[in-house]
């Protein structure tokens, strides 16, 4: 079955995590010397597959075979796969900020004799590699002093310093501006002409169309199809999208008839820059509104700017050089810190419960009251009995599975932790609730309960914004959905018109295309 022209064949790859099948019988063939793209929704299994390939998940923790150059491989560590010429560049760059470019390139692979580093050789070889990737920087410059686009090039130079037959790039342009992206794509094209095979994972379909020879589509942990972009049949972006989303909606959502009232919140011309790289625009002139009783969805791929938009509105918790207007019930409000935002009736439940949402070493009671301690205290003194009573009420109403509200938050399951976060924000009695990935990492049963809570909140007259990467969830739950791509709101779809294809079309829309 092994073919001469294939550099890599992955067959029947199945990878299970406790309770979840991340990959199921995945097949991937990569031809020698091609640029092979991998596409799929968030959570489709792209990164997991690459971790299997590079030895991050060692042989034995998955089923299936990996054949490289016609030889079966059993990688136990990343070093094993690197020895075979497989080099992976992760989405989160792995440079040490305080070390120089040259030191970073040869980190773990130092140019040394008997343990003594030869700095002259290090510098000259680094300079040669930098020239190859088209980066004109002094090798002695610290990694933190160059922009993220150049850092990406340093990563590639580092890859080239090893023997590389197969280069894997995970979302290489997600954090880059247009110019840097174009340079990177040109570089990949050059590598191809030098016989280096590339696998590129990307959400940007226009880039795939521009650079890739073939594309493999993953969905829900399975291979859907492999399309040849140079074939007789032209492969359009719509064709790829159909492959990425092609599944049916089932009845995983409680029935809900919305009662939509007046407009509560409007965001106008909202622009946010990256907190450190202040030149980079993360949210680009966004406009949106929500009405009382309405559930509005925010669709977008990773890095589209949805969380950044929400957090910047919620008390400038993210970003720099923020501009634009927030209007509440028609009049402009200031939300320059979280207390002000809460004061104006906003609430934001984070996507990262453990890092930003909960105090894991405190009790359910203390977490629920955290954002509205004022409501259970007088003259700065907390009425702990009243507080317990409130917490008990939410424990019962939201069916948080814990013996008492004195249970420690860190010991609850994901679904119950999410209910605690929701309780906290519902108790602060906001007018607008922004829920960021409210069902991430939660099992199906608990999801249904969370949807019911969200519906109940809307019925109580709250305006709800749901950010989600699961398109079926947005379509099943929301009355209206905005799609974001590359920091822009690229589309707005009413419930009746919301299909996964329509949303994915907007979610992958390139910045260069005029929206109106």
């Amino acid at each position, binding site marked *: 079955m092994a073919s001469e022209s294939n550099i890599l064949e992955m067959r029947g790859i199945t990878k299970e995590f406790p309770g979840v099948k991340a990959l199921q019988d995945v097949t991937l063939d990569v031809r020698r010397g091609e640029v092979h793209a991998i596409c799929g929704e968030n959570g489709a299994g792209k990164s997991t597959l690459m971790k299997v390939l590079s030895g991050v998940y060692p042989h034995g923790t998955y089923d299936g075979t990996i054949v490289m150059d016609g030889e079966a491989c059993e990688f136990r560590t990343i070093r094993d796969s690197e020895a075979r010429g497989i080099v992976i560049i992760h989405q989160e760059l792995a440079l040490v900020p305080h070390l120089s470019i040259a030191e970073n390139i040869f980190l773990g692979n130092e140019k040394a004799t008997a343990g003594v580093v030869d700095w002259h050789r290090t510098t000259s070889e680094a300079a040669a590699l930098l020239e190859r990737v088209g980066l004109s920087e002094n090798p002695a410059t610290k990694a933190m002093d160059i922009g993220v686009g150049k850092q990406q090039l340093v990563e590639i130079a580092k890859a080239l310093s090893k023997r590389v037959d197969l280069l894997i790039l995970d979302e290489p342009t997600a954090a880059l501006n247009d110019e840097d992206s174009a340079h990177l794509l040109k570089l990949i094209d050059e590598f191809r002409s030098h016989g280096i095979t590339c696998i590129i994972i990307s959400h940007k379909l226009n880039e795939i169309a521009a650079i890739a020879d073939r594309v493999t589509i993953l969905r829900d942990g399975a291979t859907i199809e492999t399309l040849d972009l140079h074939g007789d049949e032209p492969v359009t972006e719509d064709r790829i999208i159909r492959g990425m989303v092609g599944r049916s909606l089932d009845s995983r959502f409680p029935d809900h008839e919305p009662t939509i009232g007046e407009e509560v919140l409007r965001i106008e011309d909202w622009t946010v820059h990256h907190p450190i790289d202040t030149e980079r625009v993360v949210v680009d002139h966004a406009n949106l509104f929500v009405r009382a009783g309405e559930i509005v969805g925010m669709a977008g791929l990773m890095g589209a700017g949805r969380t950044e938009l929400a957090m910047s509105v919620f008390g400038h918790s993210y970003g720099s050089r923020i501009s634009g207007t927030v209007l509440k019930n028609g009049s402009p409000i200031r939300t320059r*810190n*979280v207390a002000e935002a809460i004061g104006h009736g906003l609430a934001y439940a984070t996507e990262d419960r453990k890092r930003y949402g909960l105090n894991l*070493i405190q009790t359910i009671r203390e977490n629920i009251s955290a954002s509205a301690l004022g409501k259970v205290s007088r003259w700065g003194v907390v009425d702990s009995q009243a507080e317990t009573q409130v917490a008990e009420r939410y424990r019962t109403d939201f069916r948080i599975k814990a013996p008492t509200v004195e249970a420690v938050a860190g010991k609850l399951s994901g679904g119950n932790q999410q209910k605690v976060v929701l309780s906290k924000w519902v108790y602060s009695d906001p007018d607008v609730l922004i829920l960021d990935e409210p069902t991430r990492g939660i099992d199906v049963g608990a999801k249904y309960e969370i949807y019911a809570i969200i519906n109940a909140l809307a019925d109580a007259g709250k305006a709800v914004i749901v950010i989600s990467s699961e398109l079926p969830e947005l379509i099943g739950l929301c009355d209206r959905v905005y799609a974001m791509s590359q920091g822009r709101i690229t589309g707005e779809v009413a419930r009746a018109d919301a299909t996964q294809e329509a949303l994915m079309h907007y979610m992958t829309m390139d910045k260069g295309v005029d929206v109106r």
Partner: protein
Amino acid sequence: MNAVREYLGRNVRQYGIVAALLVIVLLFQVLTDGRLLYPNNVASLIQQNAYVMILAIGMVMVIVAGHIDLSVGSVVAFVGGLCAIMMSQWELPWLLAVVLSLGVGALVGMWQGFWVAYVGIPAFIVTLAGMLIFRGLAIVLVGTTVAGLPAGFIGISNGSVPNWFGFVGDLDVVTLVIGAIGIVAFAVAQWRSRMSLRRHELAVEPMPAFVVKIVLAAVLIGVVTYWLSLSSGGTPIVLLIVGVLIIAYSFVLNRSVFGRHIYAIGGNRHAAVLSGVNSRRVDFGIFVNMGVLAAVAAVITTSRAGAGVAAAGMNYELDAIAACFIGGTAVAGGVGRVSGAMIGALIMGVLNMGLSIMAVDAAWQQAIKGLVLLLAVAFDLLSKRRAALA
């Protein structure tokens, strides 16, 4: 009975430390042939260790919020020296000098709080600098010693509550009255809390546990009262000061919004900020408070020494930090209680006193205290790991 056992189970960590204190007390009671618990020794145990207890109260708040304060020993020397100068050279009334000293402590706290909270320099560095700065200033101000302090001032640390009501047999009546007030106040507070729980239709602890708790507390207060009333002076004034501070700060940490914000910040700073907690203001407040408490400790230390001394307060920061950690405060922040730190301070105090009575060399005392600190934290860590496995 099951309910009682369950209640005890939930509070086992707190009881573990109390048990450790009791073991150490009993051990030294035996080793010193019963001299440890002589009434006069109990009184001086409190007088000698008041400074650790006061500093540890502030330090618990600092550590729970995820910071550290290395400067308190130097601040004690600086404020104490200034206080002595105010009385002996500027001839201010001693009460005014004490109030001014507390104000100076607050200013010192603002200085350090500013750098930590608003500039964002780690507290370790800010207070390390403070340790050098204020020690230096103390030496500049005081030279070596400033003596000649008023008797009233010296009475703060060395005196007792005056014997207004005379004696019953050998017993000091004032002390007995204070003890009785303490028992009644404790019982009333507990009863009110129970009634409030009922009113909010919440579970109350089982009646036997409630009664046992009050009886135990009454017996404990009673024994200490009886013992102190036998001592030559009766109730030391510092005991009242420390007692009031413990009650007040337990209340602040457990019941006030400020206290709850401290725990929230220490447990997960990101989550606290995203919940609308003004973390900078809380950090600033914590350091101002630490400065004031360091000033209280300075007044007590200076009063006890009878003079302002440039070398006063040496290593006090380490005593206070050790008391917190022995008392179960988490190194990473987010966990810790005033009561725990007080027991930690008492453990250190009893060790000091017991070893001194046994005439153990000071160098050995230090080594033994270090070992106890290490073992206490190791015990804490291991018991937590076991709890995580269970």
